[in-house]
């Protein structure tokens, strides 16, 4: 049973499919996110003494940070698919992903600042990972700015795809250059990531919340891509025949 992916590459068949998937992902998003947060807030034993209550910020901070980075890769993947197969839906998915990616980066920076204020006492202290998030936000903004400044959808899709690819190629170099600005005594690149030293219950809370964020991103991206499809295909006959339009 070879799944015919190309059947869904046409906007007319992708639109109803996305419509059916949105409620599914939305319920999953609500269940997982609230479940993760509930687990993190109530089920974790008071391992840390009372005054360390602020660690609960990391659930949202870490989940949104991971999503911010993952969505950039997903965006470039859709862009590359679009360039190779020249399917319009892939380009639409790329631009839909970009907006949510930008929002996730903004959330991660916002919660990161609060996290910084509570644990290090400063709202912003140029921590390598946070700085990379900031630059990732600039890349998202650059992508969206380029896309909105080109009227011709065909050119804006493909031009922003090229920009996204160039961005992805340079992001690791940026991360490396921020992580060890002085190559002579470059600190161990791999700072202890937030996973190792975290107590297992908190870890579970974090992973479940991240899964919830994944579902949330699918929901929002699919909703946005449906809007994009409608706007771009408003003159086509299959849109006129949609039952919503009667």
């Amino acid at each position, binding site marked *: 049973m070879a799944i015919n992916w190309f059947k869904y590459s046409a906007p007319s068949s992708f639109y109803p499919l996305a419509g059916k998937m949105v409620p599914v992902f939305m319920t999953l998003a609500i269940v997982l996110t609230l479940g993760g947060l509930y687990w993190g807030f109530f089920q974790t034993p008071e391992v840390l003494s009372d005054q360390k209550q*602020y660690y609960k*910020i990391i659930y949202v901070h870490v989940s949104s940070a991971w999503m911010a980075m993952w969505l950039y890769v997903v965006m470039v993947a859709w862009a590359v698919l679009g360039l190779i197969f020249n399917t319009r839906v892939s380009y639409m998915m790329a631009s839909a992903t970009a907006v949510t990616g930008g929002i996730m980066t903004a959330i991660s920076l916002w919660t990161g*600042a609060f996290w910084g204020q509570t644990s290090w006492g400063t709202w912003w202290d140029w921590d390598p990972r946070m700085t990379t998030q900031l630059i990732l936000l600039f890349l998202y903004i650059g992508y969206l700015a380029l896309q909105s400044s080109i009227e011709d959808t065909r050119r804006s899709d493909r031009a922003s795809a090229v920009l996204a690819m160039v961005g992805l190629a340079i992001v690791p170099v940026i991360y490396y250059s921020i992580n060890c600005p002085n190559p002579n005594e470059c600190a161990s690149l791999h700072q202890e990531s937030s996973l190792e030293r975290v107590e297992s219950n908190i870890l579970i809370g974090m992973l479940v919340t991240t899964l919830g964020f994944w579902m*949330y991103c699918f929901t*929002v991206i699919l909703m946005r891509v449906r*809007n994009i499809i*409608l706007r771009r295909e408003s003159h086509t006959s299959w849109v006129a025949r949609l039952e919503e*339009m009667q």
Partner: protein
Amino acid sequence: MKEFFAMGGYGFYVWSSMGFALFLMLLEPIYLHMQHKSIVKHIQRQIRRESARSKENQS
């Protein structure tokens, strides 16, 4: 309940950071839903305009 919100004195930080994030994540689907509705209305009007114009051409 009160100490739940106090969050060991860090209530302000925890809730404003989480609050804003979850609020934003709530806002986005609602905004998209409204956007969807307005696009549908726009297309319906467009269909009516075109069908009206095609009737004129025939008559």
